[in-house]
């Protein structure tokens, strides 16, 4: 079955290929895979303090549909809030790329990658907040110690 023009376009000119530093607290990284075919997909989101996705990058080792799905996903999430990004469904990708039924799992993978990246970001933020609380209490204790 031939790929649609849109899949070919994303495959030949993938948008937003690359990586962000996965240790950056403003970056959420989602790595997902399809055990059946061994495809792996990494999707990273750079998220502003007010919760808007400023930039997105991906790397996918898989078939044309998997590459096109993740490429399109990075385009779609940019400028969206986390809530809006979480509302993206694989069917949106299927429709836009005209994926045949046998390739629908590629779009599912891209949806999962968005969710995984946001979950990673949120767990990082939560960790940072609890670390901040800890630092604050240490600073207070430290100040007391100096005063003493």
């Amino acid at each position: 079955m031939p790929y649609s023009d849109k899949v070919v376009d994303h495959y030949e000119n993938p948008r937003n290929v690359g990586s962000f530093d996965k240790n950056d607290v403003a970056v959420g990284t989602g790595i997902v895979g399809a055990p059946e075919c061994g495809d792996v997909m990494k999707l990273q989101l750079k998220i502003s303090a007010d919760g808007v996705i400023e930039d997105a990058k991906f790397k996918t080792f898989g078939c044309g549909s998997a590459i096109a799905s993740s490429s399109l996903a990075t385009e779609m999430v940019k400028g969206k809030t986390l809530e809006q990004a979480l509302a993206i469904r694989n069917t949106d990708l299927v429709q836009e790329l005209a994926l045949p039924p046998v390739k629908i799992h590629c779009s599912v993978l891209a949806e999962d990658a968005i969710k995984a990246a946001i979950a990673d970001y949120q767990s990082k933020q939560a960790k940072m907040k609890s670390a901040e609380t800890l630092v604050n209490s240490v600073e207070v204790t430290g100040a007391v110690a100096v005063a003493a």
Partner: protein
Amino acid sequence: MTIPVSAVLAPLLTTTGYFDLLGVPVAVDDATLTRRFRELSRIYHPDRHANADAETQTVALDATALLNDAYRTLHDPFTRAEYLLRSKGGVSLNDLQKNAKPPQDLLMQVMELQEALMEYQEARLDDDTGTMRRLTPTLTEARTEFTDAYETLAGRLSGLFAAFDSGDDRAGVLASVAEVVGTRGYLRRVLTNLNGTLTDTDSTGG
């Protein structure tokens, strides 16, 4: 020799599973599996029933096709595992993909390895021998590691097959089988890529 072939063959076609068809346990060893397959194939081979009535000939043909499918499926431990999941666990690979918690460490490792492989392949196109030399040890080590991991998985399966036959905690056993099958896809993909890439180097390196 005349045997009431229809009577003999008919039950075979209604047998529910490949294991029952060949009369073997899930943990059957290779030699026994092959022996059973050959025994049954001899009995049902269409050539033996060339002079039989049309119905018997059809049954012999169907039975032979079924036996071939069964043998091909059970012979490889991974396709046997997939079949076990399908037939006894009601698990399709699709569901497996949806439900299996992806092994994050493995996915990360696979991702990094694929990136290194791509860098290596690009370096080769550019005749960038420095980069190739830098990456070769990593890739060679990875090949050894993943080959070992692949064999370990196959070994884990034979243990799980035996556990399944023992009948204890079948749901737990099937969950482990599903995990092994899921991991295998990634390993196989990376190994294919590694072998394809490194073979070229080996031959040019003499």
